[in-house]
């Protein structure tokens, strides 16, 4: 084995700059270019977009590199450069050996002719000779599970069949370097497993794989190395577990900012839109978060909004993580505290503080208030904090919204914040439902499991 010594892919300081022609967008015609005598001028770009910025990487022979990053981070551009479909604006790309790019499967299929003929033409397009295709034909058809449809015109295929056949041809090109761009998202579970098995076989045979994917689990399990691209730059590379971990943290941080911005916007519009008292509030509520004095007639039809007399005001709501920092993204099972800041300019003796948690479908996951929890109000004056402490946030992954309210015991609202606060629960486990009970499995008899590798 000469692993590590010779490299299969060498990208040296490659940048890709896409030019945008805004003039040409408006007058994209030869005639107008000639008439205005600005043919040359119009061919000059007005603005540029840097899709890849000074990226260098080396993939040794026989290694599998996973490329991760948010949408638009340059992953596919990188793959196209390595595939040779587009050229870097600067820098160089060198690939050693036959490449097969699973970028768009079945890209060259002609809809009118049969699957059989398309397999041949596609194979030849991908660099095989006619004889090589003939030799591998049965294997291709079997892999694609297309035996009975292979002589039907491709236009009659379902999209799954189309992609399966395209994948089967591309994978049977027997490349030295395999480039994969998020193609495992298509096809059913069974086919996905088959593809993964095929990739594993490639790995065993010492082929080099470059995998672009959003499936972080796949990168952790399958890749020898990971590369994290962010806005066209390499933000990290190395051990998949470490890179994926760093990436997840970054994604959470961004989500955090987005949620905070979204909540701020919702609250701002809730306190600026004023509706005249005669207008039935529920008529406008579904579209606009509004502030009214009395609240909507049917509270549960309300989407977002704020209403109440403000004799007691909610001045701030924050979700605090284990570290005491306010945040919007939590891991399932984390301890969380919800801090409600109240202000009562005059002392009040009749008050209830309530909290409700709703999931994205609007289902109430949990709701309680101080009265339900058998706390009777005595006195509230000035600034005060009510902290609702959750020992363990046992919700499944998803986005949740919160109602926070302070009102009289008979329901008269002081300040009602409807769905104005958003938080997201993250989880590595992809369980379903709303609530995750603390659980374990126990087995008896001759029944054994082994942990997932």
């Amino acid at each position, binding site marked *: 084995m000469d692993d590590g010594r010779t490299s299969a892919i060498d990208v040296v300081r490659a940048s890709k700059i896409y030019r945008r022609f805004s003039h040409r967008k408006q007058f*994209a015609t030869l005639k107008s270019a000639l008439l205005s005598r600005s043919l040359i001028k119009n061919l000059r770009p007005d603005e540029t977009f840097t899709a890849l910025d000074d990226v260098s990487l080396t993939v040794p022979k026989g290694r599998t590199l996973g490329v991760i990053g948010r949408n638009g981070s340059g992953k596919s551009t990188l793959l196209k450069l390595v595939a040779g479909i587009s050229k870097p604006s600067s820098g160089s790309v060198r690939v050693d050996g036959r490449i097969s790019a699973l970028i768009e499967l079945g890209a*060259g299929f002609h809809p009118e002719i049969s699957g059989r003929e398309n397999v041949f033409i596609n194979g030849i397009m991908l660099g095989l000779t006619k004889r090589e295709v003939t030799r591998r034909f049965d294997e291709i058809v079997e892999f694609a599970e297309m035996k009975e449809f292979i002589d039907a015109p491709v236009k009659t295929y379902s999209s799954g069949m189309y992609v399966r056949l395209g994948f089967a041809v591309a994978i049977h090109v027997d490349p030295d370097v395999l480039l994969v761009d998020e193609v495992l998202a298509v096809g059913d579970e069974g086919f996905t497993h088959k593809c993964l098995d095929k990739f594993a076989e490639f790995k065993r045979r010492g082929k080099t794989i470059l995998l672009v994917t959003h499936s972080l689990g796949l990168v952790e399990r399958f890749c020898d190395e990971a590369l994290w691209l962010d806005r066209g730059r390499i933000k990290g590379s190395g051990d998949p577990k470490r890179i994926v971990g760093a990436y997840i943290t970054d994604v959470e941080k961004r989500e955090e900012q987005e949620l905070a911005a979204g909540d701020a916007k919702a609250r701002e519009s809730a306190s600026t839109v004023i509706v005249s008292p005669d207008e039935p509030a529920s008529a406008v509520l579904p579209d606009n978060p509004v502030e009214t004095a009395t609240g909507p007639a049917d509270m549960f039809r309300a989407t977002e909004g704020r209403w109440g007399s403000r004799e007691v005001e909610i001045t701030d709501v924050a979700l605090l993580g284990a570290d005491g920092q306010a945040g919007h993204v939590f891991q399932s099972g984390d301890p969380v505290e919800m801090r409600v800041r109240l202000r009562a300019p005059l002392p009040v003796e009749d008050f209830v503080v309530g909290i409700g948690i709703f999931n994205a479908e609007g289902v109430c996951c949990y709701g309680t208030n101080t009265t339900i929890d058998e706390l009777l109000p005595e006195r509230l004056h000035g600034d005060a904090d009510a902290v609702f402490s959750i020992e363990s946030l046992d919700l499944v992954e998803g986005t949740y919204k919160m109602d926070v309210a302070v009102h009289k015991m008979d329901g008269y609202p002081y300040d009602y914040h409807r769905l104005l606060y958003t938080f997201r629960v993250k989880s590595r486990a992809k369980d379903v439902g709303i609530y995750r009970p603390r659980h374990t499995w126990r087995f008896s008899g001759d029944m054994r499991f082994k942990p997932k590798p």
Partner: protein
Amino acid sequence: MFHNLAQLPRYRGLIQSLVARELKARYRGSVLGFFWSFINPLLLLLVYTTVFAYIMPARFTGGDEPKPFADAYPYSVFLFCGLLPWTWFASSLNESAGVLISGGNLIKKVLFPAEVLPIVTALANMVHFFFGLPILALFLLYSHAPVTPGELLWFPVIVLVQLIVTAGLGLLLAALTVHFRDIRDILSNVLTLWYFATPIIYPWQHAPDLGKWFLNANPFTHLAISYQEVLFFRGPFGHWRWLLALGAASIAFFLFAYFVFDRLRDTFAEEV
């Protein structure tokens, strides 16, 4: 450029199978299928013959001896000699103009030699031209056209020159249309004008002197005259000097077109 050009022979397997695919796909689903390759030129011929023999009869001098164009057959044959190659030429250019855009998936998603596409277009239309030849041969036999084996040897040369001209223009149009989409719309009108500026429905001798000068500047004139002289007119093939000159020029033009295509190649994946 020359490096890429040298690669071209390596794609012959690909070109071959793509031409076969074009031909198969074209008439897939129609009742008459392949027969359209024969029927189409026949119908076209019928239309022209009806118009120029019966609706607005043309006076016609063929070869050396002037004869009034009374019977429809010789004129049809004369027309056919120019019309069939023109159909190959015109439809190749029309299709080439859009071929990179319609094949955008290949260029953007697969490592694919783009120059193959316009070349395949020229070749596929050439095969259609060949399908029309038996019909032409029948007409020639029926009208006792003075075809001699010696002259017929020139026929493949004419076809080859036309192929190079067509492929060169196809490459150029394909590459430019990616950047200027409206070439496709301009092209159909230019081709109509070009058609009438070529001695196809009238013989070259009928043109006024100034027109002759103009016609000589049109490359397809020499192809049309060559076809007509070899297949239709009596007497030795006198136009061969023009044909060989055009052949040499067309090779130079093809190289120029390939150069332009090669220079623009890297922009295709982004602009298509």
